[in-house]
């Protein structure tokens, strides 16, 4: 049995178990308490080892502070209330008394007055913010939030919770319905009266369980995705909607033109408000990306320069930017940047292109492109999210705190001397750029980097 148990644990910890296998294992564990205990022992050790190896204290801390900051700014203690509500579901949001001494000295009249005001306040709060749906209020087609948070009517829910998909919710985590698994960093989703799931904003990764007798459609303002049993990513913004298929086949119809394409695994398409669908497949091998000359980033002992080029023209036939940014050691004081996102491009092994504008006059400083790996995190506006799941609406000024490995790059305006072409740091750093993963010396003379160009999107012949 030991070999079997070892195989179970291997599959379980790697997330490779299909539902049938999980059911089989569940049956065995239910019948054998010793076996159950052994699997749990292994689970616990595995989890502890995971913590032992994690070096994300900064990210974790940022997550905690994001909760605290969110509660202290917009709606007062909203997140904290949500957390408390989950701990004590029946407890109403009450402010912590300033001191027990003051509480003891309060007169009965004051207590009555405070009580009346409290009830009135609670009533107003409940009218303004109705309670999130409970299990009993929901019917089939409900959505269970498995991990992360969801915002419903301005209230934060943390997993596990049950969502009513008829009401729009902002998902930052993982949820599951009877038909599909949804994962998103920040996507607004709801299910309309016709039963069609609608992605109103953001990017969501969807895994749909095959169910031939029932259609599954996910729609945006620009396109409809008809699912034939698959896994895919869909994003939408004011400009258009993009689809990338990871497994299976998906029908993609542009609402503006009525065009429909059937996309297979590895294929992507984008529907814009004003045009036909554009489809393309990026080469998965970075070596195939054509390297062109450029002076995109420069660095010498302590100085990082973001070069200038004509990104708009360049974008007409390709995407530009280095593939990674890696700092050699913590920056103290940290690097401060302020930028506006012009385009955020993600595809396959993921390239993010951020256009950097100066904080003062909005002059273009340069571009930054990052390969979206899990070790890169971003914390805009108090949310800590992996960069590869980050959604930044274009043409808005953002302040972003990036975390790379154990390194924090705090973005603000104080610690950096702004020049027309870049920033000045006080510590050397090492950059990994280009399709070939070139690195620079942390110090030394100015070094020009090659950027790379991804082949232009190819529009296939119409079927």
């Amino acid at each position: 049995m030991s070999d079997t148990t070892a195989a179970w644990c291997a599959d379980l910890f790697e997330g490779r178990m299909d539902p049938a296998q999980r059911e089989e294992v569940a049956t065995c564990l239910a019948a054998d308490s010793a076996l159950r205990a052994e699997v749990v022992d292994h689970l616990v050790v595995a989890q502890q080892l995971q913590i032992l190896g994690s070096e994300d204290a900064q990210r974790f801390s940022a997550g905690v502070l994001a909760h605290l900051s969110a509660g202290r700014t917009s709606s007062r203690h909203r997140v904290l209330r949500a957390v408390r509500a989950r701990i004590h579901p029946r407890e109403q949001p009450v402010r912590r008394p300033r001191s027990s001494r003051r509480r003891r000295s309060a007169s009965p009249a004051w207590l009555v007055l405070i009580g009346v005001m409290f009830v009135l306040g609670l009533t107003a709060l409940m009218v303004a913010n109705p309670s999130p749906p409970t299990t009993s209020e929901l019917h089939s087609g409900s959505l269970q939030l498995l991990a992360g948070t969801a915002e419903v009517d301005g209230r934060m829910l943390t997993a596990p919770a049950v969502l009513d998909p008829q009401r729009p919710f902002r998902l930052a985590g993982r949820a599951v319905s009877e038909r599909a698994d949804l994962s998103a960093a920040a996507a607004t989703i709801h299910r309309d009266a016709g039963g069609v799931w609608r992605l109103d904003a953001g990017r969501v990764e969807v895994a749909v369980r095959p169910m031939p007798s029932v259609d599954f459609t996910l729609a945006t303002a620009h396109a409809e995705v008809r699912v034939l049993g698959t896994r895919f990513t869909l994003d939408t913004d004011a400009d258009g909607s993009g689809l990338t298929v990871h497994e299976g086949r998906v029908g993609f119809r542009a609402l503006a033109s009525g065009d429909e394409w059937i996309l297979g695994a590895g294929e992507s398409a984008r529907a814009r408000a004003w045009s036909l669908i554009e489809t393309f497949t990026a080469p998965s091998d970075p070596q195939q990306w054509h390297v062109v000359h450029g002076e995109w980033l420069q660095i010498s002992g302590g100085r990082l320069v973001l070069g200038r080029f004509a990104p708009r023209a360049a974008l007409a036939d390709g995407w530009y930017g280095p593939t990674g940014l890696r700092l050699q050691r913590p920056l103290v004081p940290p690097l401060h940047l302020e930028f506006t996102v012009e385009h955020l491009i993600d595809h396959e092994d993921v390239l993010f292109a951020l256009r950097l504008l100066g904080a003062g006059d909005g002059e273009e400083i340069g571009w930054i492109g990052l390969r979206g790996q899990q070790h890169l995190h971003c914390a805009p506006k108090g949310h800590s999210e992996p960069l590869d799941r980050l959604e930044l609406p274009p043409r808005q000024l953002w302040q972003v705190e990036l975390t790379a490995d154990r390194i924090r790059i705090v973005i603000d305006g104080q610690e950096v001397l702004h020049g027309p072409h870049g920033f000045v740091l006080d510590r050397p750093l090492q950059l990994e750029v280009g399709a070939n993963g070139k690195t620079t010396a942390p110090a030394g003379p100015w070094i020009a980097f090659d950027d790379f160009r991804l082949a232009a999107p190819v529009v296939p012949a119409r079927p």
Partner: protein
Amino acid sequence: MDDGPSMRRERRPEAGGGIDDLIRAAQQGDLLAFEQVVLTCQRELRLFVAARANGADQVEEICQAAFVVAWERLNDYQLRGTFVSWLKGIAHNRLREDFRERRRHTGLPGDELDQILDDELAERLEASRDFERDRLTLLKHCLDGVGERGRQLLLRHHAQGLPLTVLAQQFKRTRAAIGKALFTLRRSVKECMDREREVQA
């Protein structure tokens, strides 16, 4: 060995006045001080929760919630150098609530396995309120006890997240063999930790 049993006598985060100094500042509303508290205590707390929770998501959620609640109730904490234990108490209670909550929301197909694991962990949680076990040094010591190759294998898979297929290539063995080796190594670590706890007791 450097990280031997003697390391269990190492200075705990709450042992000195440092953490309480930070807490005192945080009690005055200093969020930066509280950030330092989080940075100092997070690994100990996460390790504690990881020994009791079902999945990385639950570990993260419980730990974050524990720190948020700690911040909210910081004035309830008395500066006695027991902050980490106090924090673990919050996490412990939060975890119990979470298991109860999860049980209420089960019912989806494929959930049986998670439910069984949840039940087993919840049962263990009720049985023990020993906040001193599962210390970081104990785990490190037992990890060292499986030898360098075993230690590398465990860390590469569980800490760095390398899949078994990649490890199979690196160690020139089959995926099944790597899975079996990891199983044996985890068991060794578990037995070592149990032994050490008995000695401590």
